């Protein structure tokens, strides 16, 4: 199940970044010793959205504010310096929505998935480290030189139920 979700997540992320943010995305190699995100020195944003369907859990995105502003600027057709922090955060919320909605409907069109409302805020490197240690699917991407991390957490009860089925 995890491999199927991971492959679908890469495909959905790549498609959304190209279509809405005009940015090419490459998954980083798993053996990369120091992921791009850990080398980042800019303020970090964390976007998250809960989902509930055949199983439940949440998606979390970690990216520098600078990348969020680039995405917002490409998304809205504005110059980077015209993008406010609010618009950058709103864009990450929309990213959460699009990835979560597309990911599960792509994997199973017949099931109904309820999405929570996304939320995005600034985080510290400590929170980034703490979240990295939780059980999850974690994929690091290179967005034209800027890092973005996706973590997918599925509630253990959901995993048990799926295994039994």
């Amino acid at each position, binding site marked *: 199940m995890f491999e199927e979700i991971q492959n679908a997540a890469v495909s959905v992320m790549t498609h959304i970044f190209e279509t809405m943010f005009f940015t090419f995305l490459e998954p980083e190699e798993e053996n990369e010793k120091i992921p791009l995100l850990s080398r980042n020195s800019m303020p970090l944003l964390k976007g998250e959205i809960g989902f509930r369907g055949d199983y439940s859990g949440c998606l979390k995105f970690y990216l520098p504010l600078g990348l969020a502003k680039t995405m*917002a600027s490409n998304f809205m057709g504005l110059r980077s310096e015209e993008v406010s922090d609010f618009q950058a955060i*709103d864009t990450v919320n929309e990213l959460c*929505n*699009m990835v979560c*909605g597309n990911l599960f409907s792509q994997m199973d069109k017949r099931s109904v998935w309820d999405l929570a409302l996304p939320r995005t805020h600034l985080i510290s490197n400590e929170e980034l480290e703490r979240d990295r240690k939780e059980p999850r699917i974690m994929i690091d991407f290179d967005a034209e030189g800027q890092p973005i991390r996706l973590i997918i957490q599925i509630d253990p009860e959901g995993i048990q139920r799926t295994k039994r089925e």
Partner: protein
Amino acid sequence: MAYNVLVVDDSQTMRKVIMKSVMISGFVVGEFLEAGNGLEALEILKHHWVDLILADINMPLMNGLEMIRVLKKEDMFQNIPVVLITTEGSEKRLEEAYALGIKGYIQKPFHPEAIRDILNRIMEETCV
């Protein structure tokens, strides 16, 4: 003829992108109106003439499907065409939306051409 378009989405950024895509599509817009959820949209409809509604599903306070249910009960609003622009892709939810009377559906992420094609089709149907 110019049409008044109500865009209902809780993301201000997405509303701007949708409005821009509608403009690029060549659709002649009289006025754009914006709402952040279904309740705000219903309030706007009380005070403005609207020819077309472009709405998300997943929104706070009143979601897109709840809003359509209310619209369909009101004589004044039940014939306004509604197009959903949403991340939702579940067949069951779309069947529910079409049963409620939506005129079209665009899944995010979208190309502006997707909006143009649907708007052209709806307006041709409306004029026939």
